[in-house]
């Protein structure tokens, strides 16, 4: 239970922090924390939790953004699926594969956003002038990815350990004496 609560808090924290940072730093230096969290949780947490978190993060970002409702949610779900698939082929726990993957995924995410906007709204929020910004953001996400992975897996590991210990103790106390 505690890991699930921690994931929800991490997701809320990521959205709030991203919204706050948006007021302070230029778009090129604004890391996509929601995408970063989706990837790191997809690598470190059980699949169902990671899937629900990806959907929650996406819908949350949709509410706080000018996107169509469901647009970022769909992209986060696709990011989750891509991460799980790639993680099964390459071990994304290692820093370099994870950073490379995040760089590519951040660029694909921007392309996906443009494509969905074009499809549903008839206009894309990204023009050619957005390419340097998209590249800079992808590089930033890639640079932050190993640290974010260590943080998320560390938090989850410590909470699992705590939960496991508590369950063990409860189980032991209920065991018949004879």
């Amino acid at each position, binding site marked *: 239970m505690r890991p699930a609560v921690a994931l929800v808090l991490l997701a809320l924290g990521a959205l709030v922090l991203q919204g706050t940072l948006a007021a302070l730093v230029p778009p090129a230096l604004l890391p996509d924390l929601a995408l970063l969290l989706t990837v790191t949780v997809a690598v470190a947490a059980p699949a169902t939790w990671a899937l629900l978190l990806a959907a929650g993060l996406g819908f949350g970002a949709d509410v706080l953004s000018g996107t169509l409702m469901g647009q970022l949610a769909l992209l986060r*779900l696709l990011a989750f699926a891509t991460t799980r698939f790639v993680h099964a082929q390459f071990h994304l726990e290692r820093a370099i594969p994870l950073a490379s993957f995040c760089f590519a995924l951040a660029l694909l995410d921007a392309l996906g*956003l443009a494509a969905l906007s074009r499809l549903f709204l008839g206009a894309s929020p990204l023009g050619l002038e957005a390419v340097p910004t998209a590249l800079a953001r992808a590089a930033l996400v890639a640079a932050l990815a190993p640290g974010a992975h260590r943080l998320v897996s560390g938090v989850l590991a410590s909470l699992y350990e705590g939960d496991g210990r508590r369950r063990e103790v409860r189980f032991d106390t209920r065991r018949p004496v004879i």
Partner: protein
Amino acid sequence: MREFLGRLGLPLLFGALVLLTLFAMVADRRVLAGLGRDRSVGSALIELVVPVQKALLFPVDATRDLWARYVALVGLRAENERLRARLAELEEQNLQYAEAIVASGHLQRIAEMRENFGVPLRPAQVVGHDVSPWFRSVLVDRGGSHEVRSGMPVVTDRGLVGLVTASAPHAARVMLLLDRQSAVDGMIQRSRARGIVRGTGTGQLEFTFMVRGDDVRPGDDVITSGVGGVHPKGLRIGRIVEVRADSASLLHTATVQPAVDFGRLEQVFVMLHRGPTMELLYGGEGDLPEATARAGDGAP
């Protein structure tokens, strides 16, 4: 069966969520590209996030304020003294001129704007920016409980900022003019040439107009035309900086420098009035606050 469901549980959940996102997008698209989420479940999240963001931005704003008020002014003391002396001199020479300087303050302009348009203005503080850098919207700390509704124009003393696109009880989201989804019917103040002002996603706007002689020039002011029934007529949008002539096309475009400095947007004013188009879109007067309905009668 249980094992089968257990094995397919995750793919089924994934499929269901993907269908949900597609359904949400289609539904949202039908409500005119993202407008009108007043009663959506998302308002709860906005309500939750806005106070936290406000609290997070408080130390930043306080530091900025401290710097602007004290630290940055240390070196300006001498100049300040000189300016004070100069001001006193001007006051002696021309009392009316000094009066004009005071009248040019932004509060005065806001008061004039309120008088000119006959619409109540609700001050609001910008407390958050769009979490996606590809879209240009901000969160403000006034919402439905302050009579702020979707479809209401948002202004500063400099001019038009954008439109409220979603509101929660104590917060609202404002789509800025800069957003690529934003389009405003505008006209050149000098020549009355009409066109559409669109956001480009960058710091500038694009004015698309029909060619009828040399009626759009750099330096011209662009204002809202009032056509389209969304914004009142006469709100300042920006100034033409460049006209791109394409002889092969009937439609020309010009680059517009917005009147509002969107990089330093802190306080804005929501015009508590929705145009007829927004009224039709949001289903009549039932959704309107009393003050707005009253003001709407005299609005241009």
